[in-house]
């Protein structure tokens, strides 16, 4: 962006409207009301800059935006993508990967967690080998039934596993009590226990992440 672009190029992420189910994250740049770009050649240059900025914004967003709009003075570029038509093979998928979700799910209520749950009854974890940030490679273990989550086989007993333990595939790490049945929660793959995502004795739903693991080194 050249020196004439001092009208301000705002790139901001507005808070999501609580009612707008169809809207997604929006990266939006406010329009500058003043200033003029005089010559066509200059317009071309400015638009080129804006376009590159728009696409770079898209590429670097942690989640796929649906609208990117950048403008300077009275020149603007806006690009929209529809939610349904997400690419099958996105180059940037890694940055949108689900790794952060398991971590986030502590904070979200059960409803939101439920809506993110994986499809299968078997414990699942997101795509391995994802991005290289500090949660790299972490994956959740999910409850396979609705019920009450317990870390120990009975009150007062030692927990099945604790943070820092390395667990093996098939190893029992917790139980979910459903209609007085004690249903074991077992690891589907090996890993190091990073953190429990659900407190002892808390209700869980099917597919809710209960344990955060990382690859055992």
């Amino acid at each position, binding site marked *: 962006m050249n020196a004439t672009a001092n009208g301000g190029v705002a790139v901001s992420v507005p808070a999501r409207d609580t009612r707008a189910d169809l809207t997604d994250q929006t990266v939006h740049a406010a329009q500058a009301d003043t200033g003029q770009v005089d010559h066509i050649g200059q317009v071309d240059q400015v638009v080129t800059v804006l376009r590159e900025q728009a696409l770079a914004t898209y590429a670097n967003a942690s989640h796929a935006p649906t609208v990117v709009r950048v403008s300077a003075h009275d020149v603007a570029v806006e690009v929209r993508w529809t939610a349904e038509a997400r690419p099958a093979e996105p180059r940037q998928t890694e940055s949108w990967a689900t790794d952060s979700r398991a971590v986030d799910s502590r904070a979200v209520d*059960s409803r939101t967690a439920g809506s993110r*749950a994986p499809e299968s009854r078997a414990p699942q974890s997101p795509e391995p080998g994802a991005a290289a940030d500090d949660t790299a490679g972490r994956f959740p273990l999910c409850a396979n*039934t609705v019920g009450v989550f317990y870390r120990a086989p009975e009150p007062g007993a030692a927990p099945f596993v604790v943070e820092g333990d390395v667990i093996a595939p098939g190893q029992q790490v917790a139980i979910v009590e459903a209609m007085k049945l004690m249903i074991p929660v077992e690891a589907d793959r090996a890993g190091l226990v990073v953190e429990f995502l659900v407190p002892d004795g808390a209700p869980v*739903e099917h*597919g809710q992440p209960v344990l955060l693991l990382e690859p055992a080194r």
Partner: protein
Amino acid sequence: MISKVLIANRGEIAVRVARTCREMGLRTVAVHSSVDRDSAVVRMADESVQIGPGPAKESYLDIPSVIEAARIRGADAIHPGYGFLSENPDFAEVCEAEGFTFVGPPAAVMARLGDKASARAIMVDAGLPLLPGSRDALDSAEKAAALADEIGYPVIVKAVAGGGGRGMAVVRSAADFPRAWAKTKATAQAVFRDGRLYIEKYLDSARHVEIQVLADAHGACVHLGARDCSLQRRHQKLVEESPAPRLPEDTVREMGEVAVRGALAAGYVGAGTFEFLVDPDGRFYFMEVNCRLQVEHPVTEMVTGIDLVREQLRVAAGEPLGYGQHDIAPRGVAIECRVNAEDPARDFAPAPGLLTECALPAGPFVRVDTHAAPGYRIPPLYDSLLAKVIVWAPDRDQAIARMRGALAETRINGPGVATTASFLRDVLDHPRFRAAEHDTGLIGDLTAPAVA
């Protein structure tokens, strides 16, 4: 008292139940499979619980998961909708045992009425007319043939354990009887592992007419008139209406009276449906009781002004009905068309997919019950009912005209998606339906390949 209702169902009926709960100030818990996590009822309900993966057997039909969901969310009542667990006496019993109010008849009543033999026995005692037949299993082909001669051909041979159109055969003459009996017995043994058979008079041209009843826990019971559900395709209802056209008022009143008598005799509580066959002479025969809300309940609501889900919840909470038969004053005509995600051009094969367009009818006296909306992806795992379009009008001709318009406004499209909407318009235009001279065979006639 009920204050929080778990809705143990999905699709349009879950939305339907949630709406009434909301109006009554009851909190709602939606349960859903992982496939349905973004469904309309999940958005509408106060809370939701994912109870299992996509297949209904591991989610909507999994009793422990439903019960546990009710427990962890503190629901005090469970509404089963229709289908799934709604007519499962074990589920009703577990609800009762676990301290949840089951929105439906008592488990024991449901069990008695769910068993054909005991249901028939109760209703015969209560004076309901049944089709001439053996009622109980017959232990020999000879006895059966003798009975068939007695009641007159045609007769239908049915497996005691049968259902869904399987394990039955229509016999038109004594000569054909032995072979039909043997063949049906073999089928019943193979399919249901129960070779017991019984026989009944067969009606060539029958209408399916049902009576809606409402009973409270204090001995009060009313009926809400009749629904004609004769427009069926392979035992699946497509179009329903109330009142039943061309059925004399006296007949309807009599059917209503015997249905109420039967409900009281069975100790029924809640909303239930008595199914009858009506022959061309207007004689009616009790078939069975449906111990739940019916898919077609809206037509009764539109003519009576009574919200059946509200009444179910009130009665389940122990409230008295508070009104009697003379307070029920049906008005006009209501018709329902079931818009299914099926392709009439491919023998009604399910046609699920993403709805890129979903414009539904609206306007005067038009009601739509649906869970579909633009962007909804119909999962292939469940039944194909996508939307129920219901219209009301002062008379049947106007109701049909209104329904034709409503179906014309219905635009549901998406890759791979097909619906029965335009097929239904053709059905409405059929002279036999227009004249209300149709019976349960009409759709078969419409869709069967022409034979010389």
